[in-house]
């Protein structure tokens, strides 16, 4: 076996093993170098994985040579490979901008330990996606969560400690729920391998144990996902965490949680059970909508921009949850698309906030006064990121909202489509607040002379901004992937093609008359 064959495990192990190395190096700059190297190598590995999956379908990797379902299996399919890619890309880009920001913001602990914790969180997220074993998901979830608690507590404001503690309590409850859910499934099937679970579950799916397991899993994942009203830990955590951490978490952690949700509902329980027999949509659609409207409204009133964007994240997660809840082709496509797109826009916005925090020292609305002149490139990035958040055509935000609206109309639920658009208008308001302050008001006198952000922040920032536009224009790439991913998720390797009609050409308009997902799944 060559090194290439070990890629599925390498992308997890590489950051995992570099973490202790960072502690040993003990000097922040050296640790930064090591972490950056590891992240970029992992990114290359993930890119290679995407290529492999595209050529030969899903990859199964047996850990230690033990055959599944007894041994632990790593399994990377199309969606998994792309989530790995985006997580590693975000880690690589965020780390690029991290050195200066960490020097400025982290002084209570050694910077080297920060990078160690960062890599552990990164490894945990990669592991969650790569693994094909349900219990392993829990293990990696804990790895990433524990290191995240540490990362958040490193914020320069002492309120970061409370925020981290609250997140610790809530995150642990979430992880415990997930563990209980997995335990129930194990009780009924005697297996932890995801594929094996998917095969055995239909026989016992009518038992209360499985249903209780389903409930624990959805609520537990909902907590990690920051689904309304389980999002309460998130605004504080995002606000008080160091800028780098916020950028990384906002772009990846909740996205991986979405991936886990899709994995469990579609991959393990199967569409028929997860979205058909269980009335999940009665939970997800209202909660998604409430999340969109309520969190956007809260965001409008915020004066701390980090917090504003945190609430906007709750709203964006509402869109994803709504997409899953609508339970048809376009809905799932929208959810998967928004998973990527939201990572792109929020990654860009939070890195920009990091740059503002680095130069101005604060991210309150007042700090933005007159920034349009003093930091034109950073503010330009915020404007484009904001447009994407609103969903202006030509940016990625439009593509996912388009599919979401289509999904709602396909179900005949036009009030939902209308509410989604109302959400967009609310996004206009809170984005405009920042833009107006930056471009149409004079700089406050006390803020001194701020100049443009350092180059090492601008490069990752504008990479993400351009990605926002590129993928907003070349939609076949992302939309095609989302469809493909949905196909694979729904039925493993083309065995049960519940999503088969997804691949039919011109589905966006053509599938207007297409049947809902549930019917398709039943007929398949």
């Amino acid at each position, binding site marked *: 076996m060559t090194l290439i064959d070990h890629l599925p495990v390498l992308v997890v192990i590489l950051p995992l093993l570099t973490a202790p190395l960072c502690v040993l190096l003990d000097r922040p700059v050296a640790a930064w170098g090591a972490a950056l190297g590891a992240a970029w190598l992992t990114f290359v590995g993930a890119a290679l994985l995407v290529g492999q999956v595209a050529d030969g379908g899903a990859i199964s990797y047996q850990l230690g040579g033990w055959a599944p379902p007894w041994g632990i299996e790593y399994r990377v399919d199309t969606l998994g490979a792309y989530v790995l890619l985006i997580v590693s890309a975000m880690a690589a880009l965020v780390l690029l901008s991290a050195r200066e920001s960490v020097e400025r913001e982290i002084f209570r602990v050694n910077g080297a330990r920060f990078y160690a914790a960062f890599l552990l969180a990164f490894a945990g997220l990669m592991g969650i996606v790569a693994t094909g074993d349900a219990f392993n998901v829990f293990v990696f979830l804990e790895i990433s969560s524990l290191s995240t608690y540490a990362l958040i507590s490193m914020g320069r404001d002492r309120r970061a400690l409370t925020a981290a503690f609250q997140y610790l309590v809530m995150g642990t409850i979430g992880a415990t729920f997930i563990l209980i859910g997995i335990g129930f499934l194990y009780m009924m099937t005697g297996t932890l391998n995801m594929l094996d679970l998917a095969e055995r579950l239909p026989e016992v799916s009518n038992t209360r144990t499985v249903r209780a397991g389903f409930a624990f899993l959805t609520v537990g994942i909902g907590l990690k996902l920051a689904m309304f009203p389980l999002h309460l830990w998130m605004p504080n955590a995002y606000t008080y965490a160091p800028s780098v951490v916020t950028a990384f978490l906002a772009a990846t952690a909740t996205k991986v949680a979405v991936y886990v949700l899709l994995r469990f509902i579609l991959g393990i329980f199967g569409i028929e059970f997860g979205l058909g027999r269980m009335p999940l949509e009665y939970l997800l659609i209202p909660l998604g909508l409430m999340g969109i409207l309520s969190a956007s409204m809260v965001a409008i009133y915020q004066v701390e921009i980090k917090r504003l964007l945190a609430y906007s994240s709750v709203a964006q997660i509402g869109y994803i949850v709504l997409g899953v809840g609508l339970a048809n082709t376009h809905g799932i496509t929208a959810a998967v698309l928004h998973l990527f797109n939201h990572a792109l826009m929020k990654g860009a916005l939070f890195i920009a906030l990091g740059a503002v925090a680095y130069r101005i020292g604060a991210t309150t609305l007042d700090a933005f006064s007159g920034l349009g002149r003093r930091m034109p490139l950073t503010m330009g990035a915020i404007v484009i990121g904001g447009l994407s958040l609103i969903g202006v055509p030509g940016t990625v935000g439009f593509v996912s909202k388009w599919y979401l609206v289509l999904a709602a109309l396909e179900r005949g639920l036009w009030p939902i489509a209308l509410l989604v658009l109302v959400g967009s*208008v609310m996004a206009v308001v809170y984005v405009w607040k920042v833009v107006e302050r930056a471009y149409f008001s004079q700089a406050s006198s006390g803020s001194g002379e701020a100049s443009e952000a350092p180059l090492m922040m601008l490069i990752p920032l504008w990479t993400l901004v351009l990605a926002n536009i590129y993928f907003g224009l070349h939609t076949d790439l992302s939309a095609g992937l989302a469809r493909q991913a949905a196909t694979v998720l729904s039925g493993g390797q083309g065995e049960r093609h519940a999503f088969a009609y997804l691949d039919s050409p011109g589905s966006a308009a053509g599938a207007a008359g297409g049947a809902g997902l549930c019917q398709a799944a039943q007929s398949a």
Partner: protein
Amino acid sequence: MFESWPALALFLGAALAGLTSGRLRAAVMLAAPLLGAYGVYQMEPGTLVGYQLLGLDLTHVRVDRLAILFGYLFHLAAFIGVVYSLHIRDRLQDVAALAYAGSAVGAVFAGDLLTLFVYWELLAITSAFLVFARRSERSLATGMRYLVMQVGSGVLLLAGAIWYAGAGNGLSFNYIGLDAPGGVLIFLAFGIKSAFPMLHGWLTDAYPEATPTGTVFLSAFTTKVAIYALARGFPGTDLLIAIGTLMACFPIFFAVVENDLRRVLAYSLINQLGFMVVGIGIGTELALNGAVAHAFNDVIFKGLLMMSMGAVLHVTGEMRGSELGGLYKKMPKTTILCMVGAASISAFPLFSGFVSKSMVVTAAVQEGHHLVWLALLFAAAGVFHHAGIKIPFFAFFAHESRYVADAHEPPRNMLIAMTIGALLCAGIGSFPAYLYALLPYDTGYSPYDVSHVLAQLQLLAFSALAFTWLKLAGIYPPELKSVHLDVDWFYRRLFPDTIRSMLSRLAPFDRAFRQWGLSMVSLAQQGLCRHHGSYGVLARAWPTGSMVIWVAVLLGLSLVLYYL
């Protein structure tokens, strides 16, 4: 290149104007509309340029006679506007103005609703900067209100388009009608931009607040794109006749009592739009021709009037009618050019307004809408009073104001732009065949027939002409001052008094209604703030225990749901 994407020239010009400065920028600004117009000239009716997005077949450019007419019109308006604003050194305005014109051109050539939506929103955003460009607190606030309405219109359009396409109608932009699914939403979206009554607030609010040059651009594009869209999507909709008649009549009352002369013009813009909307509502070939031709003429003569008022504003810095006056002594050329515009908007024979307005009026009679015809006659007379007499009179004649001493003719480029407009007004009015050849239908209509309607219209026009002559003459010989005062009284006392007495009766209801609305809004706002504001229940940091309660609630809820 420019014939496959007509808006390209203007957008390219906008981009280049952002990078260049000085004379080079002036050259770019002048070349862009000319190049674009040449592109339109090269176009073949029936051409379709499509592309694929998200698996949808979109038609980016659809060429037909209607689109070509508006294509010429917008390039012409952009050119006049550019000439008019050549003396300005303001990158923001230049870029915004060209991009705004480009969006308008893009919108009229859009062959599908999604492309239309993109240009629709671009129109909103680019034009808002012309309001912002005045750079005052007030224009910022006005610009925001304007932007909210315009973007709101776009959102309605998008929602309607998706609904319409979702019902299997496809996205292509042809006849829609109110009965189509989503049709009402699209209708409302168009209605906001064409300033339907009750939806018109943004227009009279924002246009007078823009820069002197910005208003010239504003009055040309947004509303005409909306008229185009209505003519394409809703011809022959009966509701439009009623709406248009109302639009033609109600602004007259406001225009008469309004003091800000550019706001008077904004009201008269709505009034002129009313004629077009009526024409679209009647929907016969003659009426549609009339509506489109009137849109064409309105851009030119309203632009001319706006330009002359802009020149006054530029020279004096004042726009209140009560403060202005007597400027004809120092600004004779501007005065004459303004009079040409006033004659055109009042539909004097041999001026452009006459050859198009009469088509709509004739069509109304032909289709038997006699009440509408009467209302339109009233509206035409009203236009004459507030736009034909009031504008030039207050600005250039009336009493001698304190501005006369320092007044002078505006910069030469402004005069050239106004002269182009004035020549077009007179030219189209005298030789309407050239304009008629461009219209979408061939109706063989001739405005200079001695038909019944024309006789009446001419009667009206000539009586108006007599009034004007008396008034012009009345300034010098003292014995004719009574006439002047009579006329003065007519529109300074009678109209306002009538309106005031009407208003005083309606006011209590109106006030109560408004107050109720305001209190509802502020109640809602307070409620929202209480729950969503910084310390609201939904925004503040929660104790961990309460978070856990939510988890428990949700778990219980899902367990119950799943067990059922």
